[in-house]
């Protein structure tokens, strides 16, 4: 079967910073940030559960704030800073949130995990010692169908302690 020549859609070129690296990327201008990350930048860690802003699986940090990448167009992200789950570990070392999530059963199927991790990261960046209520509130837009959330709350709290320890170590380092 001969396949007719597909019409070319206009490509949108943007520059953005993703996980602390400068990126230039061109994509079909209708694409969401989620699609640009997954399809054009090869960052498959960010997931989709509804593509309608209902589940939180696709959460990423845009200029440090959690956003649903399925509701943001790629073209809106020109010149901005994006952090995805791939940006948490540094030099092969897991982030304290990742350590705690892995150790404490906070990831079962792992599908909601990337979105929850970055959302929790934004919380800990904003509030160094959040209460359980603040953790719940911050993660209330992230649906997890496996865990019942409790091990997730505990992991965030564990990471909060670990992060504080790590921070004080850095501060006291010569």
């Amino acid at each position, binding site marked *: 079967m001969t396949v007719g020549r597909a019409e070319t859609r206009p490509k949108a070129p943007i520059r953005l910073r993703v996980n602390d690296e400068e990126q230039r990327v061109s994509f079909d201008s209708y694409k969401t940030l989620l699609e640009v990350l997954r399809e054009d930048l090869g960052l498959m*860690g960010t997931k989709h559960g509804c593509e309608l802003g209902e589940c939180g699986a696709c959460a990423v940090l845009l200029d440090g704030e959690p956003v649903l990448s399925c509701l943001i167009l790629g073209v809106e992200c020109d010149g901005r800073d994006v952090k*995805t789950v791939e940006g948490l570990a540094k030099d092969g070392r897991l982030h304290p949130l990742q350590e705690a*999530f892995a150790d404490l059963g906070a990831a079962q199927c792992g599908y909601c995990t990337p979105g929850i991790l970055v959302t929790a990261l934004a919380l800990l960046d904003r509030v160094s010692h959040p209460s359980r209520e603040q953790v719940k509130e911050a993660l209330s837009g992230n649906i997890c*169908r496996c865990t019942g959330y409790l091990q997730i709350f505990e992991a965030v709290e564990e990471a909060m302690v670990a992060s504080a320890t790590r921070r004080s170590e850095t501060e006291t380092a010569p």
Partner: protein
Amino acid sequence: MTARKLSIIGVPRRRVDGRAKVLGETRFADDIVLPRMLHCKLLRSPLPHARIVRIDASRARARPGVHLVLTGRDLPLEYGILPVSQDEQALCLDKVRFVGDPVAAVVARDELTAFEALDDIEVEYEELLTLATPEESLETAEPRIHDYGEEGNIHKRVALAFGDVEEGFAGADRVFEDVFFYEGNTHLALEQHASVAAVDPDGKITLWSATQTPHYVHRALAKVLEIPAAHIRVIATPNGGGFGGKSDPFNHEIVVAKAALELGRPVKICLTREEVFYCHRGRHPVLMRFKTGVKSDGTITAMHLQTLIDGGAYGSYGVASTFYTGALQTVTYHVPRYRFEGCRVFTNKPPCGPKRGHGTPQPRFGQEIQLDKIAEALSLDPAEMRLRIAERPDTLTANYLRVATIGLSECIRRVVERSGWKDRFRKLPEGRGVGIACSAYLSGAGLPIYWNQMPHTGVQLKLDRSGGVTAFCGATEIGQGSDDVLVACIAEVLGIRPFDIRAVTGDTDLTPVDLGSYSSRVTLMMGNAAIQAAERAKELLASAVARKLEIPSQRLAFADGRVFDVENPERGVSFQEAVCIAEAMHGTIGTVGSYSPPPSAARFKGGGVGPSPTYSYTAAVVEVEVDTVTGWISVPHVWIAHDIGRSINPTLARGQVEGSVYMALGEALMEEQTFRRLPARLSNALVHKFPSMLEYKSPTTLDMPLVTTDFVENPDPMGPFGAKEVGQGPLLPVMPAVANAVYDAVGVRIDEVPITPEKILKALEARASGKPARYGPAAFPRVEWPELLEVPPPWAGGDGRALNRPERKSAAKLETAPRP
């Protein structure tokens, strides 16, 4: 070799795949991208019931970027999960049976092109009468949704009697009759179904798919594609949640495989969330009638259960689901005489199937609320009454289910103590209440989906001079931690670390068959097979090390990555060295293990559903707060105790319990898969009320209560290291415990789920106006039940066989009847 303390089993531990998950590196089906990959979308029926008169796809085929359009003619062979319900076609050929049934597939260079091309396909339908409810299906013989089944639109009817219930009712002090309704709901796994198919360079085909049952998908593909199964490879990618929703072979899986074969290029499909609601296979809506006779101390003398099951448009697991609605009542409490009648009908809605608890949460809901009513009527404490009537260990139940260990009484005692039950029940202020309920669940279905005498699971081990161990098993990781269980069992036996073992799972080319992640079977079955394979490897290593150390192999211990003399622990070799000398002595080291459940004691028709190697038990106390002005219900605390036998990895076991409580609260309070008619000016079609995650409510972090989880650990001789299931059982008692707590709080009975504020307000209004303080179904409709299959219980001299062979009503009679 001597017995020693367990060092891995029972110790909370990071799961073996935990790192990948937190890095976002777990590769789900939609994360697979292959060179030259094309994308597929399905055209779905906008009508609930119609004949397909004509499909014209010529415009779609001509659209630039479109590579292929498939219709029902390309894939006419029928398939289905059960051999008795081969009633699905990958693309509907003659008829559509619900809104969302696929009629055509477009494969194009990208998803958007495929999506746009769907509009180019013209389908002419001839509408048929829609059957929206079980009652309509019972009353309407024509048109038939399927031309098989019992008769008319009745898919399956069963009638079983274990002893004479009438005699039991006559001997009872009180007889209670109640009708309950359990609304359908769906799995809502966060990952949308996705599949990728590709033709291998050698011409064979590989399908990567988000499936819980790669083996059954394998069989369906071989059948529909008419290719030898040996030339098809199905790889189950880690599922982003399953809960039973990825247990059927699905049309989209078959379509992409066919398209890849036609085009010689990889083809991917990823369903939208709306389409996932159409795949469904979720909880069957069930109307039930319980008649139970009791002595004044609560002892049950007889129980008669009837269930009317809304199956939706296809068979799916429905025949098994039908039996499951009646299977486990006797496993929890002692029921000396038991009668069960079940009827599943077809309706023009997405097919129902197995969701966590498969067919058993609905009757569990009814039974546990009725027990609460009974306890109140008899002025008994419902917890104490349950302790009195709990089934006893090492029992053959009235319906021939062999129960081994039972931790139910201990579970009840723990939740009673932890929750402060005695100080709270009927003692909390108006608006606050506690309720209790119990349950039992299978640790794996005793029979496979299709009849065969082969093992239900197999594990292969490869050990080589690197010291590395690779474990191959067909089991499917759906998030529950099956890879972790596999590795933990092997590591424990061989005395090495879980991290030293690589798990290769869910791949029909590479791994021995495992039937799939359903019926809570994997830990018990795969675990036993893994232990067998590991013990065999251990023997090979031990014989070689024993010869080298010149000691009897019985003196060797395997621990901490070493193989050593227990009498002189300094003398030994590293595990790697042990493998090397074993390889030198025996040649290449490989072992296998397999598992088949013990034969069932039931020898009557239908006795294949319900048997399990062992059963788990759970008890739960739920506390609720009910606002009598708004009807709003909140759940501050759940206490749950689960008889797990032994937990392999307590971190994961706790997660299964808390996840079950979560899912159960969703079902109890908000989740419902319901339907509505579109306005007449549109099509009047019966459509899903809200196929979106925004409107299909599920609990968020803000809705999750405190959960106090307790494990009763009494190792079961059937389980690996004594383990029973934990993935499904803990869901079961929560819904009825919520209902019972609502009654304790505000004195009204809500005899159906979800228990919503509106229903509470209606029940409060009913009470205020002098009517029964209840919201729920009024009656059970008349169903023409078949002749009872009479099976005397063990204590009445039965041997598991039926006394009679009821005549099967022929559907042919109905087909020849004149059409209205």
